[in-house]
């Protein structure tokens, strides 16, 4: 059909006219798709109606009635909507921290894979091969049930001079908390930032004029630190240390991490870290040898070669696959239902079951993950653009 259209200059009859055919084809496709989807929808609606259920979202206003073990403030008397919010925040908490830690860990392991030291290289390789080729679900169950839960019970838990605690009820460390005079110090901090920025601008200009070393990072940081320190003394202990305490059943105060959160985080970081290590290694290797040799010929030290020639280029190669790893990690937080960490899918499943509304919950999940995925991709695009532009600017 198509090649006929390509050679015939004369107007073809309508049944051989590509435009007509294309139009008809599309209409047919749309009609068929709509028919199938309608069929599925009608079956679903009918099945639900037969069970006395509907497709409305009104039930979300009902009292939840079940407890959630961790997250933002919530009581069983609040609605399903609130419960879902708690779940969403818990998902974000796991995903955001997981992404940062996995990246750092993966970067270290990826560089270690290329180390001139044979032992380091081999250790990194074993790590990657073991963790990449085992299912995350298995790892998660292992970390939580076989490692985290086998930590000592709370009475016999590790403690660091009554400041930090670790047991199978979780971990708690001291955490700074704003004191009464925090406002005053805040003003000092702002002033410090402003002054630092000023120094930066002045030094950059001086460098442009004279070409002598500007030391702008060092100088502006020094100014900031000096002002902040002075302000700290003047305002009188604006930051207090919130020291955790053990109640014998759990911990209060400080920064706490539940065993479920810890288990999930360890599993996500170890698993995703292995993939990120491979991405890092692959990206560094993908920077062509000539680049490194040219840098060497220019007289750059190995560290400078890495910092100014290899890494900027490697980063550009690494960003698309990193993005997909970040998306995977975010979606993989849903495996937490295996260990009872109340993230979005866990809470949603409880609601679907208690209220019998699986369809609506599925739509909520889809919407939430779609927004999450799009946000991550958006952020990574920004990073990508920044990296690419900087590279081209050079």
């Amino acid at each position: 059909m198509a090649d006929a259209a390509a050679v015939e200059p004369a107007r073809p009859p309508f049944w051989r006219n590509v435009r007509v055919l294309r139009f008809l084809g599309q209409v047919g496709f749309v009609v068929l798709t709509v028919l199938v989807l309608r069929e599925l929808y009608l079956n679903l609606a009918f099945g639900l109606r037969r069970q006395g259920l509907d497709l409305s979202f009104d039930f979300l206003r009902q009292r939840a009635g079940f407890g959630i073990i961790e997250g933002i403030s919530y009581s069983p008397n609040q609605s399903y909507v609130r419960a879902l919010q708690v779940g969403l925040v818990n998902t974000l908490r796991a995903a955001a921290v997981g992404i940062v830690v996995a990246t750092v860990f993966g970067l270290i392991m990826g560089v270690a894979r290329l180390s001139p030291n044979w032992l380091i290289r081999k250790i990194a390789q074993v790590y990657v091969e073991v963790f990449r080729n085992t299912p995350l679900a298995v790892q998660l169950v292992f970390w939580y049930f076989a490692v985290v839960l086998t930590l000592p019970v709370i009475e016999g838990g590790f403690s660091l001079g009554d400041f930090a605690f670790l047991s199978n009820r979780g971990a708690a460390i001291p955490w700074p908390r704003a004191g009464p005079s925090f406002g005053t110090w805040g003003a000092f901090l702002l002033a410090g930032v402003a002054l630092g920025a000023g120094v930066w601008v002045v030094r950059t200009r001086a460098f442009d004029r004279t070409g002598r070393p500007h030391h702008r990072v060092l100088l502006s940081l020094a100014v900031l630190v000096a002002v902040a320190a002075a302000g700290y003394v003047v305002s009188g202990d604006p930051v207090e240390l919130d020291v955790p305490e053990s109640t014998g059943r759990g911990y209060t105060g400080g920064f706490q991490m539940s065993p479920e959160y810890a288990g999930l985080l360890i599993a996500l970081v170890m698993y995703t870290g292995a993939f990120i290590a491979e991405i890092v290694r692959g990206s560094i290797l993908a920077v062509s040898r000539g680049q490194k040799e040219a840098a060497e010929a220019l007289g750059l030290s190995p560290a400078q070669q890495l910092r100014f020639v290899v890494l900027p280029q490697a980063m550009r190669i690494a960003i698309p696959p990193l993005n997909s790893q970040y998306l995977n990690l975010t979606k993989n937080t849903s495996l937490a239902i295996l260990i009872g960490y109340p993230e979005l899918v866990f809470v949603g499943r409880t609601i679907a079951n208690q209220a019998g509304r699986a369809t609506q919950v599925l739509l909520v999940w889809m919407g939430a993950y779609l927004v999450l995925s799009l946000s991550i991709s958006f952020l990574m695009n920004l990073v990508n653009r920044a990296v690419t532009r900087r590279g081209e600017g050079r």
Partner: protein
Amino acid sequence: MRPRVNLQEDVDLVGLPLEDERPVEVAPARVPATPGEWIRDNLFSSVFNGVLTVVTGALALYLGYQVLRWILVTAEWAVVKANLRIYMIGRFPLEEAWRVWASVFLVAVLGGLSFGVSGHRLRWTLRKAALRAALAALVVGALVFFLDGPRIWILTGSVPVLLAASLKAGRAGYERLRVPLWIGWGLAFPVVMVLLRGFGGVPPKLWGGFLLNVVVAVVAIFLSFPAGVLLAVGRRSSLRAVSSFCVGFIELIRGVPLVTLIIAGFNLLPLMLPSGMDLALIVRMMLIFTIFSAAYVAEIVRGGLQGIPFGQYEAARALGLSTTRILALVILPQALRSTIPAMISHFISLFKDTSLLAVLAITELLRAARRASAQLEFLGAKKEAVLAAAVLFWVVAFSMSRWSQRLERRLGVGER
């Protein structure tokens, strides 16, 4: 944007160690001649490296010792031994287990023949030989420990024998066998399905353990490949309706976690299907994994399609090929070839993802392990129970990834 860069200073600030002297001349690549030289080059090339080697070496030795001691002395492997059947086949009736064995033998023969035909020969160096001997000893030791009774020894023992025999046959037959082998592999899948299910066989409800992980993964791989290619082609279609449908489908599926799709397949899919279609749970899960996988395959294929230079289309068109032929004979073969590594790594992760079926009460390998460690006599053995499952998954996933690397080298995919 900075106008110029002062390298010296910025490097100081990021805190990277600076070498005292800068070797402008490139050191010639040196092949270490003696073990001493090798050690110096690879372990003690600088003071920093030396310290690193000593510290991590000591740590690795200590950890290695502890792990080994645990595996050989402390660990209670009885939980795995007693539950081996649940691990491997779940509630699959024992009197029908020959069906599984027959399938394993079939795959072993095909695998051996393929390996023989490929003409690949193991290279034997002293180091490799030692490594392989150690590995073989480990496998045999584990099998002797875990398997009880002459029947299962004979059955398990015949797998390597079959493998070796068909390897020999494959080498002898070489090129003549190539086409029959392709057909054999193509038929293997339906034949295994009939073996398991047909002729008074075992309904999928009773499939379980590792068998289930493998079957679900294989079904999803086989079905999702054509579906994914179709979706990828559809996505690049100039027909708006088709391409937007494909984009919507792919992005929707890729946007949500597999767990939610599994749950949807569990309680919504049955309601959505027409009332006559009553699919068993396992079959629905195969469908869900296929749909899930197809979206990812589509993205991989799209990547391959994008890598094909436009000139290829033009050249093919200049030869007077129809669009369908251009796609089937020129574009897809090239595009698919370049996607082999990505495709295999996707399939590996799909295989690993089958462990997510544990979320439902489906006794695949992971749930089997958790069930086993809940039995009264094995309550303390969670570590052993889960590790055994992990090792099984690992062996398959790792061999697949190794095979993929070899394939990649042989096809020279990385070089273009």
